[in-house]
């Protein structure tokens, strides 16, 4: 078994030196952050070339995170997927319960290399916040997490976890009080405290080099999954399926499969109450190109460039932007993106729980719902790998209310 888990893109063709994936990406940041963002880019290039960095990160990913994560075939669940075989890439079994730790450990090492002592991060569902608080505890870094006030309520368990780990959690009360606003507030903090602070960005959006760097830290997901499915099924899958909010777990799964032209790359966006309702966060399905949080990509916005407030039952997908590499994959036709409603995601969450004894995060349940659709399209010969990006413990309150599981309520 390989013990190499830090596997940056060996091609290195995209993004361009300016951080562009085709027409998307770039670096739209205030002058006050230019030096800091450039420092991250330079330090990351140095780290990539430094065997000691890879060795330390590989060690952490093996002994602390628990990589490689297993690939689990879910036969009873797949009965509802048109008879296709379905395998789950179990990022939910990583330490802290999601894929987020892959990126966080890499950037925490980078923080130390840059000599910075304080880390800030945004979080939606709390998974990136918990992973960041965890790494800061491990490395002895000061940690502040920005989280939309609505999300602190619907993901209260993760707020408690972050505080348990010693992080300061700041509820953000501006705008839609969700992930977008948490990122705004983190940027404001960064501008003011950039000397000693690293912004440990949690997804494949933001200014260059974050989209490429965060992708590289998650690339291990697809590299492992590709090797595992070849061992288990004897062939490449027909489709790799993942949920898409900012897009980190999806790019992590997709990236190693991009050269495999016959593998469909299917991203599942949150359709909320349905795209027609206007209450959704399906950025690639319903957005237009624009600039948000430092890069050009698809954005949910009105005709005058004001960002529209997104909605999803899933705090981690409730975001009006998307990583620029996904915009590039969509426009080039290599990636396909479909929208999954709250109700379809919650049904898939219940189905996986009842058929396989695995309770997924609501985010990941969007991918499961998408996989059921793709499986029915593929039929009996189909073979699908789904990224189970996180576990559902944090979502029990939302799920219990949705399904009526608390005492005195009937099951919905």
């Amino acid at each position, binding site marked *: 078994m390989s013990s190499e888990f830090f596997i940056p893109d060996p091609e290195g063709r995209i993004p361009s030196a300016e951080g562009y994936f085709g027409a998307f990406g770039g670096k*739209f940041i205030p002058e*006050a952050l230019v030096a800091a963002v450039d420092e991250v880019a330079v330090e990351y290039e140095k780290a990539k070339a430094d065997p000691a960095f890879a060795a330390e990160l590989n060690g952490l990913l093996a002994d602390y995170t628990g990589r490689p994560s297993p690939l689990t075939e879910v036969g009873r669940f797949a009965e509802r997927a048109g008879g296709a075989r379905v395998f789950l890439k179990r990022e939910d079994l990583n330490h802290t319960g999601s894929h987020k730790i892959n990126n966080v450990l890499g950037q925490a090492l980078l923080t130390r290399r840059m000599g910075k002592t304080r880390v800030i991060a945004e979080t939606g569902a709390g998974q990136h916040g918990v992973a960041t608080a965890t790494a800061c505890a491990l490395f002895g870094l000061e940690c502040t997490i920005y989280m939309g006030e609505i999300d602190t309520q619907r993901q209260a368990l993760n707020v408690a976890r972050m505080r348990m780990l010693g992080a300061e959690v700041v509820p953000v009360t501006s705008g839609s009080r969700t992930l977008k606003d948490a990122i*705004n507030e983190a940027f*404001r903090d960064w501008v003011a405290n950039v000397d000693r602070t690293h912004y440990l960005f949690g997804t494949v959006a933001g200014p260059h080099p974050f989209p490429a760097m965060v992708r590289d830290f998650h690339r291990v997901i697809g590299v492992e999954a590709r090797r595992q499915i070849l061992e288990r099924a004897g062939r490449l899958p027909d489709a790799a399926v993942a949920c898409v909010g900012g897009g980190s777990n999806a790019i992590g799964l997709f990236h190693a499969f991009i050269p495999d032209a016959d593998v469909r790359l299917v991203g599942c966006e949150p359709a909320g109450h349905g795209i027609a309702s206007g209450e959704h966060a399906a950025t690639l399905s319903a957005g237009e190109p624009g600039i948000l949080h430092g890069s050009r990509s698809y954005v949910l*916005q009105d005709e*005058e*460039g*004001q960002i529209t407030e997104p909605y999803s039952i899933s705090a981690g997908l409730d975001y009006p932007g998307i990583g620029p590499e996904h915009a590039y994959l969509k426009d080039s036709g290599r990636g396909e993106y479909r929208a999954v409603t709250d109700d379809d995601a919650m049904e898939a969450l219940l189905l996986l729980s009842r058929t396989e004894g695995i309770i997924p995060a609501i985010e990941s349940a969007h991918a499961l719902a998408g996989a059921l659709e793709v499986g029915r399209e593929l039929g009996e010969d189909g073979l699908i790998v789904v990224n189970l990006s996180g576990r559902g413990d944090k979502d029990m309150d939302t799920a219990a209310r949705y399904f009526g599981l608390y005492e005195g309520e009937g099951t919905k």
Partner: protein
Amino acid sequence: MSGNSQLLSDTLAAAKAQDRGALIAYLPAGFPTVDGGIAAVKAVFEGGADIVEVGLPHSDPVLDGPVIQTADDIALRGGVKIADVLRTVREAYEATGRPVLVMTYWNPVDRYGVERFTAELAEAGGAGCILPDLPVQESALWREHAGRHGLATVFVVAPSSRDERLAKITAAGSGFVYAASLMGVTGTRTSVGLEARTLVERTRTTTELPVCVGLGVSTAEHAAEVAGFADGVIVGSAFVKRMLDAPDEAAGLVAVRELAGELAEGVRKR
């Protein structure tokens, strides 16, 4: 019609000839209402501002502190549109004959269309634009259109800007250079740091453009201090705060006119 970039340069040169700093005020369009915002811009001109930056409110003002965030929020809830921003520029310019710039984030301009925006801003009598999240290396298309329409492009420099980057930025900019006095978002501060003076000195080694200082300046004492080493003093949040704290719009207009008067005295005490 061509924009008023020359008027902006002439105004800054006139202040310099009078051996004083220029006073540059910032107010968001549409706050507290579109007409109230226009009245506020006129009031700060009456009070003694030389130049006004009209903010085009954005849903995600990442570089603004709580005061301007609140004003932007009020303006957007009131339904302010780019047409209203342009009307604010037009009425303020026509009433005073003084230079009016627009300050905003890049996405609204990108979405509206660079050619359409620059043409309409010039037609309204605007003097230029400040786009703090459009870095110089992404600005070529903007500058081409702005230049063609006679609009200045004011870039921001920060204490963290390295020397070679300062040179690149000031070479691309026009009108004046906006020197951020500190590392942070907009908002009033109790003092203006030494960083500002150092940054102005470093910036001057790269350009003949006037260098004006903003961020954190709120009192006549600050204004006098900054005017001692900079060509202009930029004040935003302090004006907005006066409007927010006033019991009604009329009182707010009196308050911002007064503040402009105090600051105008300050920039003459260098």
